[in-house]
């Protein structure tokens, strides 16, 4: 019983508020056999924010925009990981232009999907306060590492600290990426204006193209090498999966938010 309640708590809050109590009852009646289906349902709902119970179409677009921003931030992070693993975008046919084109597509997509703050002092204050709260921690941790690198560069670069510092760096970057994407999540119509359907769809297509392009380049370049780097391959595969997540949201948006 407790486990079922615990699993249902993993659903998005909007979904739990609407269906949570009935879902717990149904899951309890089905017993342990319901667990795999519940876990699949949880993943399914997190990947489809546009179908969560909502008060308006604008709220659905706001949630889809939050997912798109998450994907954009993760795409940037995975592209950076691949570059650091020796698979830079400049190694693709087209050289430096390919990397520039991907960056332009990513920034264009971000600009198109980003909800805008309402032009009031209260809304801007709420948004800034949330940005500071979400990004303050990761910023302090990065500053701490940079300070350590400047104060004791030899010690930091030597064993056993080197491995720990690399793990610390990537963990902080990943946490920062997640926190960055959480800034706009669930702010509501009093603080931000959700992008219009056309702008949101164009932005999501741009981000999908970025993820597919960068993912394909990373996978193709890695596969062409005698000993493919496993981390770069994983980053490339993750980028292609991110593109898939965006296309499912695009499909949802077409069916639920047409103006």
């Amino acid at each position, binding site marked *: 019983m407790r486990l079922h309640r615990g699993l249902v708590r993993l659903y998005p809050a909007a979904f739990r508020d609407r269906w949570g109590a009935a879902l717990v009852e*149904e899951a309890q009646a089905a017993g342990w056999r*319901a667990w795999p*289906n519940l876990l699949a349902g949880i993943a399914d709902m997190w990947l489809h924010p546009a179908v969560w119970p909502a008060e308006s179409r604008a709220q659905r677009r706001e949630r889809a925009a939050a997912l798109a921003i998450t994907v954009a931030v993760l795409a940037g992070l995975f592209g950076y990981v691949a570059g650091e693993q020796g698979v830079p975008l400049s190694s693709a046919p087209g050289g430096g232009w390919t990397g520039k084109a991907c960056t332009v597509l990513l920034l264009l997509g971000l600009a198109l999907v980003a909800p805008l703050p309402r032009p009031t002092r209260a809304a801007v204050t709420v948004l800034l306060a949330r940005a500071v709260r979400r990004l303050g921690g990761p910023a302090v941790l990065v500053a701490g590492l940079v300070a350590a690198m400047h104060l004791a560069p030899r010690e930091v670069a030597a064993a056993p600290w080197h491995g720990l510092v690399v793990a610390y760096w990537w963990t902080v970057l990943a946490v920062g990426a997640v926190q960055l994407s959480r800034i706009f999540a669930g702010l509501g119509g009093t603080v931000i204006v959700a992008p219009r359907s056309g702008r949101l769809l164009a932005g999501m297509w741009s981000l999908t193209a970025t993820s597919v392009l960068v993912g394909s380049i990373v996978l193709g370049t890695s596969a062409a090498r005698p000993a493919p780097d496993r981390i770069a391959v994983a980053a490339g595969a993750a980028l292609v999966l991110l593109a898939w997540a965006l296309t499912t949201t695009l499909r949802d948006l077409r069916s639920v938010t047409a103006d």
Partner: protein
Amino acid sequence: MQANDAQTLVLCVLADGPLHGYAINAAIEELVGERLGPGSLYGALARLEAKQLIEPAEEQGRQRPVRLTPQGRQVLEQELRSMARVATAGLRSLGVNPA
């Protein structure tokens, strides 16, 4: 949609009138012989509500039943007609009387 699609099954059993989640699954079990998993059932309900094919009906105590909207009824009819056409053509090709 397909005949065993969770959303189609939910729409089908709601054609008789408003039902709450547990009753929907019981009706589906009666229709096709097995229940939907809870994740599949409530995922289908969330999607159908988002598409405005179902809507909340009057609450009965703790139960929160849902019913078809006029648009939901129309979509269901189109789907069933389409499935019926495919089933009739398939059965005829197999030499089986579709009646």
